[in-house]
């Protein structure tokens, strides 16, 4: 494994680490494994966390994260600047893979009330890097933003985004009229959008206002 020798002491890695994500992607496109490693170090944690949230088990989450990163490496998934930040794009690749894997497995049990904090509380905080601590705080605040939505709005959003259910499946699941689900998605997303514009700025994700 020649790559793991690339510690931060490597001057090339140190140079890559100073690049913005978009610049880093240019190196990844040229098949630079060191650049790819920096990309992984930046977003691998969020990618794995999202995959875990969606598929619900560690080995499934690992498979999804691995598939997603390798498809990015092989340029099967192309970064589209117009669509947002590199991080959002990486996570959308992960989300798509995770939902595919749920559908392939045929077991899509809605996981709505997962106590995400419990998993982390079990970890001594001394093991957390500063970055992790910030992300954890951000995730708390954002979860607050979503939890402050009326239940019927947050539920449809979570079922769609983390469960991969279509609006018609959700309507059936929650015995709602067709049309109502979309309306709630719209109200919920609009509220989240207004809240993030007002208060939170999670690591460069919000370029539009």
């Amino acid at each position, binding site marked *: 494994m020649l790559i793991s020798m690339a510690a931060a002491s490597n001057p090339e890695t140190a140079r890559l680490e100073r690049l913005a994500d978009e610049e880093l992607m240019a190196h990844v496109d040229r098949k630079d494994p060191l650049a790819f490693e920096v990309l992984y170090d930046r977003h691998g944690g969020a990618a794995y966390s999202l995959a875990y949230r969606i598929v619900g088990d560690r080995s499934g989450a690992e498979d999804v994260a691995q598939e997603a990163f390798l498809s990015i490496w092989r340029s099967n998934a192309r970064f589209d600047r117009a669509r947002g930040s590199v991080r959002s794009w990486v996570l959308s690749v992960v989300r798509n893979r995770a939902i595919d894997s749920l559908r392939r497995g045929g077991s899509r049990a809605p996981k709505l009330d997962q106590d995400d904090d419990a998993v982390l509380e079990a970890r001594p905080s001394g093991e957390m890097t500063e970055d992790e601590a910030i992300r954890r705080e*951000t995730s708390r605040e954002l979860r607050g*933003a979503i939890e402050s939505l009326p239940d019927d709005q947050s539920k449809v959003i979570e079922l769609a985004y983390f469960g991969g259910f279509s609006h018609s499946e959700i309507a059936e699941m929650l015995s709602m009229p067709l049309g109502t689900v*979309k309306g709630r998605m719209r109200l919920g997303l609009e509220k989240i959008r207004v809240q993030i514009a007002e208060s939170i700025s999670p690591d460069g994700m919000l370029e539009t206002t």
Partner: protein
Amino acid sequence: MSDRIDSNEHGERWNPELAAYALDALDPDERSAVEGHLAGCETCSERLRWMLPAVDVLPATVAPQPPPPELKARIMDTVGREAALVRAAEGDRAPAVEDRPRRGFLSGLSLRPVLAGLGVFVLLAAAATGLVLSDDGTDTGGSEIVYTAEAERPSSPATGRLEVDGDAGMLHVANLPPTHDGEVYQAWVQDKGSAGGSVHASSVFVVSEQGVGDVAIPHGLSKAARVMVTREPKGGSEHPSENSLLTAEMG
């Protein structure tokens, strides 16, 4: 902005669709309808762009989970091997390829129906030989000539190496995207000829998860100008159904 849009009928009609679209919660026909509408409606396109950050923020609501270190090790192991393959293929320059119009054939491919009508394409090896995955170390002896295969699309990382021994050869490919169900890759051999020689169907093959594969070209190489690779329906095709993804020019 939102108030102005919300207040009108257009917004009432489309904003819920856009929200469901942003959340990837539409059925396929509805999704196409929204995409069709977005193509011609700047108001809705702008509205969607405004809305998307609310979706992008959803992953950040997930509690961070520390990824297992083996995950990175596995990913970087594959990445390291594939990067080495790419470098190797880049270092392996083909024997002097003259400056000649290699794009010529590509435009020929897009004229396929016409050419097919003229009987230019000949089915040779009925998508037969299948493929050898993994390196089985073909010992081609001393008379072998090696050519580099290059991706036709600048954005594609695909690379390859064609080893020719007499009339037969072996094409090694790397970084081809995995095929979908019901799809295979197929090699094509084009004869030398002033106006672009006949194109013959050769072997079909698949690639490993890493995008790597080896395919035997059983014959036709002694009078060939180039070997090309396209994606085809399972079983292979008589005529290429797309422009070449990867081409080995035989100078």
